[in-house]
């Protein structure tokens, strides 16, 4: 076991994937000598060379578009989008090509491409550096969308994503990059929980709290705080956002009868709506209260001096939990 930050765990996952499969490439802006603006790809170019760790020109459509071409030639590119807010120039290549080409070819083509996106707020950054664009991709059939929340998952899920023959949008909670945990670098990937499964990270009986990425830590803290009020909160780290692991979610909600979904993205038309609708349909007779959502507001991400108000924090999560008991 090795103590690793989440960022280093991704680095280790990339390294292991590259060692095991010479077809795995890393590409993006500043991923080479600099090792990425978060140092996630630190040292990889030195060890694997410029042909496998590719500093690309500054254009996200170009990054994803050429990655598709490389995949068509048999490579398994892992693209880095430098910040969440800069994925939109690549939206067309992701939505009309990456997601649709396999079906377009009746399965003759597979695109084992991972698009890594550091996401979310809380780091005091300027505009476009704190967004949570997952819903744009969960609504895009043909993609798999996952989010890791801790170093162990970061290490395993990234490798699973790279091994997947489907395109994967891989969200990394940037404000948790420096969180540490013990990671078993020699772990048997096949024995690890598959990356399309959710994980109950805290057992509880009164209410189910669903979170992913950066919000998992907040959710766990909220559960601890709720316990003091005598409320037993079950926390599920969704991990997979498309498809959802509904079995795990429904089991929990049928047990607790209450459900809150938390994400940083704006609530309106966000993933929480999908979850709420699905949970309500499947657990209608078990619900004591409507599924409540807590998340960003229907505004662009605010300047950083306001982000503590915009981001759902422990208090706002608890407020939502409380409200489910008012029904």
């Amino acid at each position, binding site marked *: 076991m090795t103590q690793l930050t989440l960022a280093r765990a991704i680095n280790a996952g990339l390294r292991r994937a590259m060692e095991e499969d010479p077809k795995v490439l890393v590409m993006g802006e500043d991923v080479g000598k600099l090792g990425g603006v978060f140092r996630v790809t630190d040292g990889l170019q030195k060890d694997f060379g410029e042909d496998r760790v590719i500093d690309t020109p500054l254009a996200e459509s170009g990054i994803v*578009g050429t*990655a598709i071409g490389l995949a068509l*030639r*048999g490579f398994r590119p892992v693209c880095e989008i430098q910040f969440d807010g800069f994925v939109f120039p690549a939206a067309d290549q992701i939505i009309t*090509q990456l997601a649709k080409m396999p079906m*377009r070819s009746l399965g003759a083509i597979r695109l084992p491409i991972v698009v890594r996106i550091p996401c979310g707020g809380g780091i005091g950054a300027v505009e476009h550096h704190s967004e949570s664009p997952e819903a744009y991709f969960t609504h895009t059939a043909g993609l798999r969308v996952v989010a890791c929340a801790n170093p162990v998952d970061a290490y395993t899920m990234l490798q699973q994503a790279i091994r997947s023959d489907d395109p994967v949008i891989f969200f990394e909670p940037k404000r948790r990059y420096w969180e540490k945990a013990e990671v078993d670098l020699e772990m048997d990937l096949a024995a690890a929980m598959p990356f399309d499964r959710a994980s109950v990270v805290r057992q509880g009986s009164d209410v189910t709290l669903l979170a992913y990425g950066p919000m998992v830590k907040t959710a766990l803290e909220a559960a601890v705080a709720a316990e003091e009020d005598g409320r037993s909160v079950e926390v599920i780290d969704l991990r997979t956002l498309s498809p959802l692991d509904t079995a795990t979610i429904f089991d929990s909600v049928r047990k607790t009868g209450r459900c809150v979904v938390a994400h940083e993205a704006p609530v309106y038309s966000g993933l929480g709506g999908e979850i709420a609708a699905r949970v309500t349909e499947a657990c209608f007779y078990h619900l004591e209260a409507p599924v409540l959502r807590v998340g960003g507001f229907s505004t662009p991400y605010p300047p950083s001096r306001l982000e503590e108000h915009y981001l759902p924090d422990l208090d706002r999560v608890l407020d939502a939990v409380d409200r489910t008991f008012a029904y």
Partner: protein
Amino acid sequence: MTVDASRGADAPPELVQLLTPEGELVEHPDYEFDLTAEDVKSLYRDLVLVRRVDLEAVALQRQGELGIWASLLGQEAAQIGSGRALTEQDMAFPTYREHGVAWCRGVDPVKLLGLFRGVNHGGWDPAEHNFHLYTIVIGSQTLHATGYAMGIQRDGAEAATIVYFGDGATSQGDVNESFIWASVFNAPVVFFCQNNQWAISEPLEKQSRIPLYRRASGFGFPGVRVDGNDVFACLAVTKKALQAAREGQGPTLIEAFTYRMGAHTTSDDPTRYRLETELEAWKLKDPIERVKAYLFKNELADQEFFDRIEAEAAELGKSVRTRCLEMPDPDPMEMFEHVYAHPHVLLAEERAQFADYLAGFEEEVA
């Protein structure tokens, strides 16, 4: 507010041409004519056959058998010339109009019809033919081709890619990004732009105020304009560019100066935006007639040869038609296939629900 542009049916001086519309060979300092009679006859055959497939497809559309068709009429030389320049190892990335290139890559024309008939979005295996699927989102395939070429570099293979796109496509960000990637990585890719003068209703002036082949110079790689109705020149220019790419000399932009003789697609009505006279001028430059004239004049082929090709074309047309009509509609459950390589819980659920739903109707009927 508009400025002078150099478009026009009058071939500008920088045009590479080896065969005149009258069927005369012309010398060019950089490109040699080195085709045997058999070569030329075989090119002629391809030109005639793909035109015939195209005509048949237009007819099928008119009869409601296809939803739409994008005709290659007038662009046969650009497509056969460039398509025949490819080796088996080379990879081609088409738009939606490259029926001639598809033919050169051995794709059964009926497979092309599938997409336009609405039975699939692309019914051939790109790897089998080294011919990618048709791409409809304008310009996006240029990046795929460039990435593929970067893959060739990494494999150390003796191969190149060629990517097709239109004059209108040159305005898309993706196309220009692919120029950057290709030049920065010196990737073995040939950009083959069929400038057919129109992007639906918009003339070239709406996309560029200078000849398109000159775009390449701004990115630091060679651009060349070829007579797109001259199959000899298209073949020679493309061969040379592909060879340069394979040899590590990087990308080339080829602008095939040609004309879209038909409508943009069968849904289009070009009388709303262009003059009949333009069409007439281009008819005199027909890509097939000039090869026929060359073969005739040089007594390389007799009437029997032309008749034989005509007959073969008629046969092919008939076969394409029959097999188009026989093409089965896909099974509804087919929708759920192919989207993912691995099991997907949501899709499995939707598939099961939909199967139940359909079964409900059958019960009702029964």
